[in-house]
């Protein structure tokens, strides 16, 4: 059995980097969340990171985070009160007291924000989230995929309003949440119906926070100008392409999310790796052959700075390594893959995945982390 881990302030950088990688080019401005977390926990310890198994089986855990437009988040950052507002609203609606919180989305801003929320709430963080990466829609939450109702859902806008939706299905929840966002100022904090600690193993994706920490630490430890293939292997994945961005095309036509295409020409082989994006990097083709897709992770890393490059940042001329990292095993289940595979993004192709998915336990570095935690 594993046991509680107490991340220190020194781990925030690793958490930020790891969450950014898991964001797959999307998930919002992680550095903003990191700076909020540092500010809100200044002079205090960070919230503890628990395994769900450490909680009593019936202990309620509420998933919380931010939804909406990430650009608006930078304009008007959260003040802190948004999280108690939604968590307490859900607790009241369900007549429960949460033992801990968990993230809704480990990729991007929410991967870090859950610690900030927990700090404000004075609760621990359960090592799990509802996506295992960044994804754009509420039907792509693990609990929804596992058949758990999202409602009651509470939303609180940065500008004040709070709303609780109950007794509605997931589709209506998504619709109502989206209609609430403009009123709320573009983004809102959110809390979903509690999960029992014992259900987290099946209705959430456990271990993803440790994975973020591990990926972040590993990536930060790599030399910036080092070999890209070595870096990809160290992160548990493969290198798709190492070269210069030939062309970035963005279409703002079909849906609310910005779509586009990035093409990188491999320095050595001259091969063209084309990455289709819609908020996140979704599908990669090398010389026309699909080589990677959701729910696996496609990450673009700037070869000059070593930093992950977001979909909104990538531009022609950058030197880029395209990485393919394994996605969570949770999504490979035949009943769930339809929600997150390429077809869920109107990309008519079956998923193209690494041989082995990420399963919390099989990650050697992750085991080392748990061992370190156990030793404390």
């Amino acid at each position, binding site marked *: 059995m594993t046991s509680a881990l107490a991340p220190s302030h020194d781990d925030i950088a690793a958490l930020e980097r790891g969450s950014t990688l898991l964001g797959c080019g999307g998930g919002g401005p992680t550095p903003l969340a990191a700076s909020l977390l540092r500010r809100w926990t200044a002079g205090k310890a960070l919230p503890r990171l628990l395994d769900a198994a450490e909680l009593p089986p019936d202990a309620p855990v509420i998933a919380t985070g931010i939804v909406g437009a990430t650009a608006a988040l930078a304009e008007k950052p959260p003040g802190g009160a948004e999280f108690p507002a939604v968590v307490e609203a859900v607790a009241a609606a369900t007549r429960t007291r949460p033992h801990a919180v968990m993230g809704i989305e480990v990729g991007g801003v929410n991967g870090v924000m859950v610690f900030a929320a927990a700090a404000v709430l004075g609760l621990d963080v359960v090592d799990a989230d509802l996506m295992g990466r960044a994804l754009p829609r509420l039907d792509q939450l693990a609990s929804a995929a596992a058949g758990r109702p999202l409602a009651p859902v509470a939303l609180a806008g940065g500008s004040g309003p709070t709303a609780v939706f109950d007794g509605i299905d997931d589709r209506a929840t998504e619709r109502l949440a989206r209609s609430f966002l403009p009123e709320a100022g573009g983004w809102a904090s959110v809390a979903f119906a509690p999960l029992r600690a014992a259900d987290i193993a099946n209705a959430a994706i456990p271990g993803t926070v440790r994975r973020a920490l591990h990926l972040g630490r590993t990536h930060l430890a790599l030399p910036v100008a080092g070999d890209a293939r070595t870096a990809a292997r160290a992160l548990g994945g493969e290198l798709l392409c190492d070269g210069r961005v*030939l*062309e970035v*095309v963005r*279409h703002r036509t079909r849906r609310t999310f910005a779509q586009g*295409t990035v*093409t990188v*020409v491999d320095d050595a082989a*001259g*091969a*063209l790796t*084309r990455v*289709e994006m819609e908020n996140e990097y979704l*599908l990669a*083709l090398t*010389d*026309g*052959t*699909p080589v990677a897709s959701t729910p696996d992770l496609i990450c673009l890393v700037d070869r000059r700075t070593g930093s992950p490059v977001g979909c909104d940042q990538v531009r022609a001329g950058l030197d880029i390594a395209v990485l393919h990292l394994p996605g969570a095993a949770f999504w490979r289940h035949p009943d769930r893959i339809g929600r997150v595979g390429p077809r869920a993004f109107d*990309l*008519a*192709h079956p998923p193209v995945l690494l041989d082995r998915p990420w399963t919390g336990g099989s990650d050697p570095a992750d085991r080392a982390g748990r061992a370190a935690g156990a030793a404390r």
Partner: protein
Amino acid sequence: MTARPPTLADVCARPAWTGVAALAGAEHLHRPLTEVVVARDLDAVRPAAGALIAVLTPVTGADWRIDAALRRLADAGACGLLVSGRAAPLRATAILADRVGIPLLGTDDDIVALAVGLRELLSAPEMDRARLLVRAHEALSRRGTTPKEVAATVAALLGARVWILSGEGATLAGDPVEVEGFRTAPPMVQRHPHGRGVALFAPVPAHDADHADLWMGVLLDQNDAAWEETARGVAAVATMALRCWRADRRVEIERDARLRATVLGELLRLDGEPSAELRNRAGDLGWRLGGWHLGFHIGVPDGVDVLGSTAELLSALEAEGIQATLVERHDGWSGWVTLGSEPAPDAVGTVVNGVRRTQRRLARLASSHVGIGRAHAGPAGISATLGEAADAARLAANRREVGRFLHIDRLGLAQLLLAWTRTDTFQPAARDLLAPLSGQPGELDRTLAAYLDAESNLTETAAVLGVHRNTVAARIARVEALLGVDLGSADERLALHLACHTVLGDR
């Protein structure tokens, strides 16, 4: 058809495919095409070796599925991808098309129609050809289709450059291409490689079949055997139409020629003033019977197409400033220029020189002989001047030294006749005539010549020869006996006189 399968480049050169653009991978259009496969959309693409994959549902240039399809086509050994719409693809897609060697074609035309047409072309090339030939036949079988219309029709059917030349190579219709190796004879279909394509020349043979009346040139963009075969078929239909047009023209020309010949015949037989009816008929032809007429006769060897050359001759004379009336004759043309008053010598000189230059310039007249008569007045003057011109032309036929050209002027008639005695025709005849006298004692030929020069006066002849008068009489008697002639006859005297001049003058 056993020809090699066409390439995409061949197909794209066809008229039905002019709306198809190579959006990417244009360097890879030269693989043999064996099949066309229609796919509902990019997701349904099932590539096959040698196939063109035609996708019905329109795509945007940025669609990643184009890339995926290009790759699958390349892996399957397919020929190309045809999509609906001509939007430029992403740079990445264009580079990929080149990398995998698969051309990406786009069109706003009906993909199904293109695919069906292509399938037919590939599975049954003769169907495609037959359809085009039927269309050619329909378009060209109308009577009176001019060369210009034929060229335009064939150009539209084949989507090729088409032009029509005269038998000598002058442009009649279209915009000709200089093609190396083209010859105006013999009248057989010619094929010459030209650039990346092929130039075909189809003749309309003349009635004598050793040269062409017309040539039709067709320039095909691609060297595609099947398409060339089709083009040859269309060209055959087109040359049939051209032959028809020529035959119609010929009938018109002959009708006109016959009319002119009839009126001229009556003028030549004119005795006194022409009847009002003849004046009218001449007037209908635009002939002026009054004034002064300066006639010429152009004789040509057998085998020259006189009727077919009249128009060319008229325009050549016109180019020399000569407004002549021409009438076709059995051996060439009679022609004359009508002037208001008696022509001054320099006016005559202008006509003479113009006719002479025309004779030299026209290739058709290379072996012609030309005579020009004197100017004569009035309706009867036409007959007179043409008679002189015909005589002069007859004489000119043997006078290579003057370019087979003779002009009878006022002073030159006698010289002309004398000159005739030196012709190749007359000289052997003269020698034959006097042959019995040679080898006989008594200088019979000289005695005969002197006797005739002395106007049959025995005494004067004896004085000239320095012999006795009786000797002369005896010799003349022997001459009459040897030659079997009667020197009392004026005709026989004249003939012998000319013969003596010729034979003795030669010595």
